[in-house]
């Protein structure tokens, strides 16, 4: 038996290891996770194989660009490669300015990808494996700095020819390559001014410009860059660093980034030195008091609504309110509607005062949740975070917590335990103090879970809310909340309304138990979302937390029925605490290709501004799907419209590329693109007809006819 199993086991191991050969094991240092991956499945003798050092940095921490700016250090790589292999210097992602007090650094946050080309010698033998290893060290800083290092390895099979398959991370590597600075297609020169070097760019793309010199100390990173425009020419006056003062270089080399409302691109600039041109604009920084004419200082385009002047507040609030009412029939509010209905059924026999109190408390819960969520969002955005509506569902822990809460509510509806202090029958307990708390809590939960639905219905209003002042934004959100609560508030305040409710009776218990299944259905959805965010290990942890929580709830129920005493209470509390442990360990898994990102036979691409621009330049029609796993409306559209054979047929016949922008996990580029559209959440569907200037924005609830009509109408 043993002798037969072993070879099977070994070959299984072998298959497993080969399938992942081009992915190095991740190494976790204190503030970063790093791994080495190859673009291709195998290295080919005489060719170049691109290897990526992918890092996931701790939130709020950064590493440095090749010129780190005022402080900091760039990445250093010491390779240990097989005979004849050669690695070139890494290509850095586009740098960002990272101010720290009066200092400015150039660096990267989030998930930087460094690309390294490795030349494979002719002498490499197909069939062998190449062991690549690198001693990488980097400085990672938040407000404090920690030097970190790791030895990263990668085993790469050598093959005679490039296989048909791509490496596991080829999409990410491809995206990193596309976002590398491209050759400047405009003229750039530099000349000396008293303050330092000044760039003159002729025909540069429009947008917010930033120049990052390759060499340190040529330009003071914290010095002001004065931008002036004169017809086609844009001037950037910079403050000299000590290396520039010591010797003015023959050419000023670096990366020029151009940021527009929805993209950020880099251009390699090699600006040769010229004499100061006649009639050059004055580039001395202006004083705070003086406000001279600055034709070149226009900012990037504002979101759509804001462009046409601030709309009147009152109609916007009314619209938000109506939207809030309609929200009640959106798919993801359904579980809450069930919960609310259960609550209403329970208090149906109570006197009007209790009913009214519950209506008001439910409204209060909704408003508090909206104010809290909106306040947090507005505050974080003011702090520079790239977040959109529904951002809390981008956290796998939040998803897991919602799953547990809804699971417990389901158990509660089944009668496993009661909310409140005593069990005197279903109706009484819900109408008691616990019922009042329950009403408020239901309001809170309604907003938290309904958030992804708010995006689709009220995309414009939410986008507007976020582009306005904090107070206006808050008012708009509160108007939505009031709308969401309105039907129940009305029902609880109008005496006649309560009388239409049927008389209470045993049917209520049955109804309550049936509603529990609505909760479990929601849990299934949340588990599915989590599986995409946190992978199998996340599901395992959620399962363990559910086990502990339900066990705790069961003991708690026994305590309530008087079947166990103090020990039971302690045990119940302990189980709930135990449930928190696996929950807190859930982490975002590395982005994989989720089931979101394809329509099967239709040509599919991962969204990026650069990729989109390339397709559009080639005259290819593109359908862009801004989606997220936690967005139920997105899934409904996907299943009922996009994934139908008629729509797919239309895509194929018209050569439309289906491009997916997956917002399940946090993605600043997508957030920025949504913002540029004046939206703060998903879904958003765009169709770019060949050579059209602007996209057609499709409605958020798609119809097969509508999609086909838009595609074929072009």
């Amino acid at each position, binding site marked *: 038996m043993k002798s037969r199993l072993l070879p099977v086991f070994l070959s299984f191991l072998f298959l497993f290891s080969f399938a992942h050969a081009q992915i190095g094991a991740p190494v976790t240092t204190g503030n970063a996770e790093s791994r080495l991956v190859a673009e291709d499945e195998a290295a080919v003798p005489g060719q170049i194989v691109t290897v990526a050092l992918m890092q996931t940095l701790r939130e709020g921490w950064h590493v440095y660009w090749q010129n780190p700016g*005022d*402080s*900091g*250090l760039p990445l*250093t790589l010491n390779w240990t490669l097989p005979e004849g292999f050669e690695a070139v210097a890494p290509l850095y992602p586009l740098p960002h300015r990272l101010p*720290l*007090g*009066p*200092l400015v*650094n150039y660096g990267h946050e989030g998930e930087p990808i460094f690309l390294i080309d490795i030349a494979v010698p002719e002498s490499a033998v197909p069939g062998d494996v190449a062991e690549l290893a690198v001693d990488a*060290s980097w*400085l990672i*800083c938040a*407000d*404090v*700095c*920690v*030097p970190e290092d790791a030895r990263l390895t990668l085993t790469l099979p050598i093959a005679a020819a490039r296989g048909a398959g791509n490496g596991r991370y080829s999409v990410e590597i491809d995206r990193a390559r596309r976002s590398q600075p491209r050759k400047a297609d405009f003229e750039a020169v530099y000349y000396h001014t008293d303050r330092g070097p000044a760039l003159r760019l002729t025909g540069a793309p429009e947008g917010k410009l930033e120049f990052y010199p390759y060499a*340190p*100390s040529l330009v*003071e990173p*914290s*010095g*002001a*860059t*004065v*931008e002036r425009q004169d017809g086609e020419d844009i001037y950037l006056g910079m*403050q000299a660093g*000590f*290396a520039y*003062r*010591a010797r003015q270089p023959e050419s000023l080399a670096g990366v020029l980034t151009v940021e527009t409302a929805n993209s950020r691109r880099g251009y390699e600039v090699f600006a040769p030195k010229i004499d100061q041109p006649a009639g050059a604009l004055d580039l001395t*920084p*202006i*004083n*705070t008091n*003086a*406000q001279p004419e*600055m034709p070149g*200082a*226009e*900012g990037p385009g504002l979101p759509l609504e804001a462009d046409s002047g601030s709309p009147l507040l009152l109609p916007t609030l009314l619209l938000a309110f109506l939207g809030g009412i309609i929200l009640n029939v959106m798919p993801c509010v359904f579980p809450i509607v069930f919960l609310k209905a259960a609550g209403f059924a329970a208090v149906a026999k109570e006197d009007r005062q209790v009913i009214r109190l519950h209506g008001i408390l439910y409204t209060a819960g909704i408003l508090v949740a909206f104010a809290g969520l909106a306040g947090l969002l507005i505050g974080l955005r003011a702090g520079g975070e790239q977040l959109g509506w529904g951002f809390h569902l981008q956290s796998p822990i939040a998803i897991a917590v919602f799953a547990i809460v809804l699971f417990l509510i389901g158990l509660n509806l089944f009668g496993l335990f009661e909310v409140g202090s005593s069990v005197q029958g279903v109706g009484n307990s819900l109408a008691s103090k616990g019922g009042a708390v329950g009403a408020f809590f239901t309001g809170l939960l309604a907003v938290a879970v309904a958030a992804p639905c708010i995006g689709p219905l009220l995309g414009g209003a939410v986008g507007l809310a976020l582009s306005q002042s904090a107070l206006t934004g808050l008012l708009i959100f509160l108007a939505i909340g009031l709308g969401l609560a309105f039907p129940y508030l009305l029902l609880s305040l109008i005496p006649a309304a309560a009388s239409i409710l049927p008389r209470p009776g045993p049917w209520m218990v049955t109804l309550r138990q049936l509603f529990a299944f609505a909760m479990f259905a929601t849990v299934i959805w949340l588990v599915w979302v989590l599986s995409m965010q946190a992978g199998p290990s996340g599901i395992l942890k959620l399962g363990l937390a559910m086990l502990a929580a339900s066990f705790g709830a069961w003991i708690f129920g026994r305590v309530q029925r008087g079947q166990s005493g103090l020990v039971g209470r302690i045990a119940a509390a302990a189980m709930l605490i135990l449930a928190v442990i696996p929950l807190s360990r859930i982490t975002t898994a590395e982005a994989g290709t989720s089931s979101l990102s394809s329509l099967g036979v239709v040509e599919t691409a991962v969204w990026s501004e650069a990729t989109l621009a390339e397709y559009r330049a080639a005259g290819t029609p593109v359908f862009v799907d801004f989606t997220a796993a936690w967005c139920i409306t997105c899934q409904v559209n996907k299943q009922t419209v996009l994934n139908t054979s008629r729509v797919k047929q239309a895509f194929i016949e018209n050569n439309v590329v289906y491009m997916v922008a997956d917002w399940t996990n946090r993605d600043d580029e997508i957030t920025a693109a949504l913002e540029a559209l004046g939206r703060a959440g998903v879904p958003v569907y765009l169709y770019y007809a060949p050579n059209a200037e602007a996209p057609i924005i499709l409605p958020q609830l798609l119809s097969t006819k509508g999609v086909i009509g838009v595609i074929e109408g072009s």
Partner: protein
Amino acid sequence: MNMLIAALAFLGVSSTAAPIVGSTAPDFTGTTTTGETISLSQFENQKVILEWSNHGCPYVQKHYNSGNMQSVQKRTTAEGVVWITIISSAPGEQGYVNAAEADDLTHSRKAAPTYVVLDPEGEIGRLYAAKTTPHMFLIDEDQTLQYAGAIDSIPTANVNDIARAENFVMAAFRSLQNGQAVVTKQSQPYGCAVKYAS
């Protein structure tokens, strides 16, 4: 937008008027850990070395744990240099210490500065555009700035690199002692950003 650029311009002007090597070093007045008030101008006719420090920074630790910084302090002060260690960390930031803690650090690290100046407001730091810890400045008898930049030529946190590195401060000091011009007058400082109040 105009306002923003104006604000940026103002920030730029106010924060990066870096002293220029070869010119007169900007005079400053500061309070030492013993409560004494000292000014750069009172040390005319002496060489002065300014060292920006933050004991929590791994790059400062590299040069103190190895004894390198203490060694440079002892060798230069023995030849008459006034060594001023300046701590510009703002209260609540890494490296911020009160006078007693600063003296404890000097004692426990067996450091040999002439003075330790506390600069929690960051005034002296901004005056010199001190960017990193460590960041070194060498000023000659005529109060001319002769060197500004890193302590040495290998910008890592690895103690083993100290032996292989060229110590720019010692090299500049030796050149001046021998009546020669400083070869490397300025270098890119390396280390942690100075923890100014933001």
